[in-house]
């Protein structure tokens, strides 16, 4: 049986790949523009769009079933030193897929990792987390407070 990614904590690479998958093309273009010259690389598998079948579980925890498909795009690049960069994300953005694969490759290089974490992954992760919190705070404003209704002789 495969490990359950929902309960396993993420490795550093899983974390940055997740941040890259959730970033927009604009985010990645801006990040790359700010980095200056990029290392040379070859596209091993050009960005390709396909589908992934999304599985659910009956009742949330029971028998697996297929909900329906989603579009996804993947890409593989190889840096000069042989390091392979991969990207996988929902959607059909091929340009984003290639940039994300390149960044995944660079993030594995000790020479580039620190700067990329500081200037790209860190800020994007923070931005994604804060957006998530904003959404949750708006939902929280609609939380029903029954307590005030029954206060008193309830």
């Amino acid at each position, binding site marked *: *049986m*495969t*490990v*359950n*990614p*929902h309960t*396993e904590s*993420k*490795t550093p690479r*899983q974390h940055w*790949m*997740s941040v890259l*998958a*959730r970033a927009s093309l604009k985010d990645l273009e801006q990040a790359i523009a700010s980095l200056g010259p990029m290392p040379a690389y070859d596209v091993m598998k050009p960005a*390709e*769009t*396909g*589908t*992934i*079948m*999304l*599985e*659910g*579980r*009956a*009742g*949330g*925890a*029971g*028998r*697996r*079933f*297929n*909900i*329906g*498909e*989603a*579009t*996804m795009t*993947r890409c*593989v690049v190889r840096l000069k030193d042989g390091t392979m960069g*991969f990207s*996988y*994300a*929902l*959607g*059909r953005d091929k340009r984003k897929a290639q940039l994300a694969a390149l960044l995944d490759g660079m993030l594995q290089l000790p020479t580039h990792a620190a700067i990329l974490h500081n200037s790209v992954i860190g800020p994007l992760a923070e931005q994604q987390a804060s957006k998530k*919190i*904003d*959404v*949750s*705070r*708006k*939902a*929280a*404003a*609609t*939380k*029903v407070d*029954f307590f005030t209704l029954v206060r008193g002789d309830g």
Partner: protein
Amino acid sequence: MYVAVKGGEAAILATHDLIAEERRGDPSIPELSVAQIREQMALSVARVMNEGSLYDRDLGALALKQAQGDVIEAAFLMRAYRTTLPRFGSSVPLDTAAMAIRRRISATYKDLPGGQVLGPTYDYTHRLFDFALMADLGSEPEAQVAVSPLDNTMPRVPDILGDEGLMEAESPPADDPRPFDLTRDPIEFPADRDVRLQTMARGDEGFLLGLAYSVQRGFGSNHPFAGEIRLGEVSVDFIPEELGFAIDLGDVTLTECQMVNQFQGGKDIPPQFTRGYGLAFGHSERKAMSMAIIDRSLKARSFGEAAEYPAQQEEFVLYHCDNVEAAGFVEHLKLPHYVDFQGELELLRKIRREQEERAAQAAQLEAAE
């Protein structure tokens, strides 16, 4: 039966041009962008993604634009596009317990861990027209923002009952088998739950809604409670073979409904509530609720209930809930049936001729007597 007919190419090309012009409408009115449809017609887009069985909000919006808002035609476009793409694999089963919740309500418990979160809903609106939407508003609407976010995770309501043993258990079968996939294999009966749930997930909302309503009105013996409805974002994990570890691909929006239904028991099982489950792409509560009611009614066989009504009969439900297939078969009647019809016409003329001949002979005989 219909036959291929040659001719009409020029007429067909002209109708393509005409429908394009019709679709555009009055050219003095600005054209809709796909992004506008995606952002402002999100509930329609969700329906198209569900019935088209493909999660992609941009494509759902494009399909609606191209189909002039015809949801079934749009779903058809999604299905057709899907067949042109390679399948990279299946996700790890999505974990709705880990959903980033935007709405979560229960009609069975007032106070529950995590609370009742109304989220974005029309439930408490007065259904009076807001004519302000017709005017150009200078200002953007602004939602209220609470100081703190919601709890990170909230227990699913049926699991609370399950902990007390009052709810039908829901656990994977031994070995956690790969689910049936109706896009690869034909449905066979009796159909297992994975087959039923996948079929309903892509089924027509209106059809499932009507059937669910029939159950409530007595054509099926269930008494459902909305144990929980939750809406929010769930991350999609995928394990590519070449890497061997899980990759988070981003989020999908899902609506999940857990119906709690009246009890059942057996020799070895004390009476307990039974479950109905619905899950849909996007914000699609009516769909998820209808699916959950029918999921329960289709358990008739396993609970030894007489399947007397349509909503309890899996062949009826599963063979007829797909609106792309249904529309295809109903609408194929528009295609030329000239030969068939000529055959019918000939037959009718022959019957009439024979009848007239018999009548004439009878009249002659009568006159002779």
